[in-house]
């Protein structure tokens, strides 16, 4: 079947808690999202078969559409060459916790960190970094490896030709731990060795018989060079071959995904969810030639994706903050950010002990949702900190050149976290896309815009957008098979533009005007808005509406063309509108005084109409 004849597509994303299905069809000369269904994911007991959740999620679409999408025995998605069922079925997955890895390196801040970058780049969650100098005793390392039950281990260490002892000792520890895969009892655990070439034999002697050992090029062949590509590719390969294939029901699901081409069945590989989202964001950045950031905040993890320039070339980066999320990891947000940082976003007074208990109760019962407005506001406060911390981690790891042969100086090699300098430049950012439950399903889109601005602090002129119903994973995997359908649905149904945000950056004078914005509105009228210090303003400008604009920043302030230089261009609205943010950048500070802080938060929420007015009476007064 030629690509243009494809008319009907089903895609699913098997998340850690929910399996989401979407139906895309060719209607009125373009591809559109027709239906969405969802059902609980069924990887865990009692079902222990991911396809059950898929059948339920697709069944919901069947019910709503009144057509058949499952085959008559209800044991598969109906993909055919005629008018029955759909033409294509594809899927992504992060179920069962996604790809969970332990990485090992001799020196924690050197090969340990390189191994961490390789695993993160492949879309894995790094559960632990084991290193010869990590302070743990050998038997503690053994116990931790065994307890965490990673899906895969990446072992690195030593430059080529250097000392072998420590990396061999790490291999001894792994052998001693003999961790069992989470899925597929009786299968060997995949271990990738990407260390000193001269230690290949002793490492093979240690692990060859008990582990599924793969040997790839050293990811740190010399001290000042990082070579992550081979390790990353092998992680992807083993993820499909071993982890996915062993997860309950996946071998069946892997047979379902595909399409007929010229009468022959072609299988479409299942993609890890973060990999699919990253692919879509990379595609968007390339097609539109812009700098893009995307963030996907889930229950257990938060993924950040970015495309910024390095030496004139666009560079894609992806990081996975394994323990920042809104349910399973919610307490870790509190632990990492500190109570003070979470509480600073709550626009009413709240007893700290009460807040702590609420967050803990969410952690131990991670699938609950906020019923009351007060609970929603608290969750959105936590989300701001989770997003902020995920961005901090992204800045630290999105450095230097991409992939193979990342050159660093000897000096950098001793300070890996700051090596290369971050590529993340919020002033250069054109488009910021939010995704994941707390952003995609916020009751008001204004809340989404507000959370994105507070946590990412975009500078200058930035378009804010949200993945409408969390379908970027589906479109990412679809873009591999049918790029046109993926692009059209992304533009028409997936990406909801919230509106441009204009935020002058630089040292500001208290109480002054930060910038003057002259607008020629879509109806031809002209208006001038001011961006006042410490204030937010929402200018009505609807979805698809554009205004020719000239922004005159105050002395020393930057809106994109450099300090004090004016900016001319087109500002676009969205479902929220045009947001003028005068709260300052570099630094952005909330009032230290608690009463003033609450007043300001209430004022800003009021300016954006983020919450119903009754939020002003929430919490105890002080």
């Amino acid at each position, binding site marked *: 079947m030629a690509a243009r004849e494809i008319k009907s597509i089903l895609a699913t994303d098997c998340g*850690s808690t929910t399996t989401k299905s979407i139906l895309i069809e060719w209607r009125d000369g373009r591809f559109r999202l027709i239906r969405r269904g969802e059902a*609980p994911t069924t*990887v*865990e*007991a*009692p079902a222990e078969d991911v396809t059950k959740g898929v059948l339920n999620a697709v069944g919901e679409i069947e019910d709503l559409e009144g057509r058949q999408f499952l085959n008559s025995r209800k044991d598969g998605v109906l993909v055919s060459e005629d008018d029955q069922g759909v033409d294509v079925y594809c899927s992504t997955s992060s*179920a*069962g*916790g996604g790809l969970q890895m332990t990485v090992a390196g001799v020196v924690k801040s050197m090969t340990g960190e390189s191994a961490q970058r390789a695993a993160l780049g492949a879309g894995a969650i790094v559960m632990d970094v084991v290193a*010869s100098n990590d302070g743990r*005793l*050998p*038997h503690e390392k*053994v*116990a931790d490896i*065994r*307890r965490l*039950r990673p899906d895969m281990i990446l072992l690195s260490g030593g430059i080529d030709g*250097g*000392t072998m*002892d420590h990396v061999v*000792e790490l291999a001894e520890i792994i052998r*001693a*731990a*003999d961790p069992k895969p*989470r899925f597929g009892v009786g299968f060997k655990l995949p271990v990738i060795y990407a260390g000193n070439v001269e230690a290949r034999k002793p490492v093979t002697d240690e692990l060859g018989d008990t582990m599924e050992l793969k040997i790839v090029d050293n990811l740190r062949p010399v001290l000042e060079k990082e070579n992550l590509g081979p390790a990353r590719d092998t992680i992807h390969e083993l993820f499909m071959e071993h982890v996915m294939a062993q997860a309950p029901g996946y071998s069946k699901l892997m047979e379902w995904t595909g399409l007929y081409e010229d009468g022959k069945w072609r299988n479409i590989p299942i993609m890890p969810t973060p990999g699919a989202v990253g692919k879509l964001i990379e595609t968007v950045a390339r097609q539109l030639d812009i700098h893009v950031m995307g963030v996907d905040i889930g229950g*257990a993890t938060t993924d950040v994706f970015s495309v910024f320039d390095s030496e004139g070339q666009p560079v894609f980066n992806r990081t996975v903050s394994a*323990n920042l999320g809104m349910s*399973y*990891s919610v*307490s*870790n947000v*509190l*632990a990492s950010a500190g109570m003070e940082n979470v509480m600073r976003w709550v626009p009413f007074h709240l007893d*700290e*002990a*009460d807040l*702590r*208990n609420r*967050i*803990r*109760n*969410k*952690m*131990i*019962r*991670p*699938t*609950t*949702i*906020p*019923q*009351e*407005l*007060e*609970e*929603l506001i608290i969750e959105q406060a936590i989300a701001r900190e989770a997003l902020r911390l995920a961005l901090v981690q992204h800045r630290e790891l999105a450095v230097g050149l991409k992939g193979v042969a990342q050159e660093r100086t000897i000096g950098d090699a001793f300070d890996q976290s700051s090596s290369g300098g971050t590529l993340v430049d919020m002033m250069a950012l054109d488009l910021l896309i939010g995704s994941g439950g707390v952003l995609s*399903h916020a*009751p008001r889109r204004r809340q989404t815009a507000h959370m994105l601005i507070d946590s990412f602090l975009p500078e200058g002129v930035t378009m804010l957008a949200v993945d409408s119903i969390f379908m970027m994973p589906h479109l990412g995997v679809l873009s591999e098979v049918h790029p046109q359908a993926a692009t059209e649905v992304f533009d028409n149904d997936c990406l909801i533009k919230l509106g441009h945000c204009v935020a002058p950056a630089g040292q500001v004078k208290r109480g002054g005007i930060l910038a003057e914005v002259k607008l020629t509105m879509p109806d031809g009228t002209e208006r001038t808005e001011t961006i006042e210090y410490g204030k937010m303003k929402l200018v009505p400008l609807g979805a698809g509406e554009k205004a020719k604009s000239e922004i005159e920043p105050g002395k020393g302030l930057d809106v994109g063309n450099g300090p004090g230089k004016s900016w001319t261009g087109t500002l676009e609205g969205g479902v929220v509108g045009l947001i003028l943010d005068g709260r300052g950048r570099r630094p952005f500070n909330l009032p230290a005084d608690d009463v003033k802080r609450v007043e300001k938060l209430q004022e800003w929420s009021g300016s954006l109409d983020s919450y*119903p007015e009754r939020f002003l009476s929430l919490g105890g007064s002080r």
Partner: protein
Amino acid sequence: MAFAYTPGLRVAAVADIVKTRRLPLKGQVLVKKGDHVKADTVVARTELPGNVKMLNIANILGVPSRDIHELLRIKEGDRIEEKGVLAQSKGLFGKFFKNTVRSPIEGVFESFNEITGQAVLREPPIPVQIDAYVDGVVEEVLPDEGVLVGTHCTFVQGIFGIGGEVRGELMMIVDSPDQEVSPDRITPGCAGKVLVGGSYISNSTLRKAVSMGVKAMVVGGFDDKDLKDLLGYDLGVAITGHEKKGITLILTEGFGRMGMAHGTFDLLKSREGMTASVNGATQIRAGVMRPELVVPLQGSESASVEKGREAGAMDIGSFIRCIRAPYFGRLGRVTALPPELVVVDSEAKVRVLELEFDEGGGKAVVPRANVELIER
């Protein structure tokens, strides 16, 4: 949609469970299939490699690594004593200002690397043994690794816990599930016991329990700020069980003041005086693990086995507990499962259920995600 999946903790008066008892390293299994074991029966043992100490001899002596070999006073594999001489420099004229490197530990001189100048010293092996944890029968032997022990028991899962495996006699220290544990209830007679409290225990009372030698505390709720004080850090990811605080703590309901579910309280009360095996280990992740209390049963108590339910279908009439504000902890029965999405107070559109609270407590509409099934 007539039913929904919802989580629930297992609280079973009678159940058959199997516990895996596995060594951290391969070793020797000491029992065989079919053996009757007590909770404290050692079922397997091994020796963990001793802790490693790295010592850079070249740096200490200020001599190039390649020249160290001739200065070593011992060879690889030799036993070493604490403060024993490992290496000595030649000194001036072979006599004066000699530098000596002494071993900081007792153990074995494992290896020396001529490139780095680093020596690896290893302490003596650490013997490790595992017990059966519960009274029961060895159902399967995992060669060189451990055993599976089956037991016929009362089985209660908590929602969160800290601390590892302990055993002790069950003892009630409150009169009702809604009562807080007061310090005066913790007496010297509580030493070695597994105490069952009601709705809440404060950190100071818990510390008193530790000082009295209480093995474990099972209680409805505990404050998170107290947990931070107890642990000395803010717990991030909920993976627990390794804490060494002198007590194992199990919360049956959650954080804050929360009356223990009546069913759980009454069941534990009926087992007072019996020996319980308790584990606070909790892992809230894919492959979730909850803390547990196991009371092995014998003789006439071993009636029919109830099929436990960890997750299942909720239907009209199902007994449920609300697990989120504003009705947190309240119990009731499902009266309707409307299929359409409903806008709740937060303005979110969600799937809901209607319920009637116990004892004429009125009716309410709550998101389906905010309840759990309970067994009655």
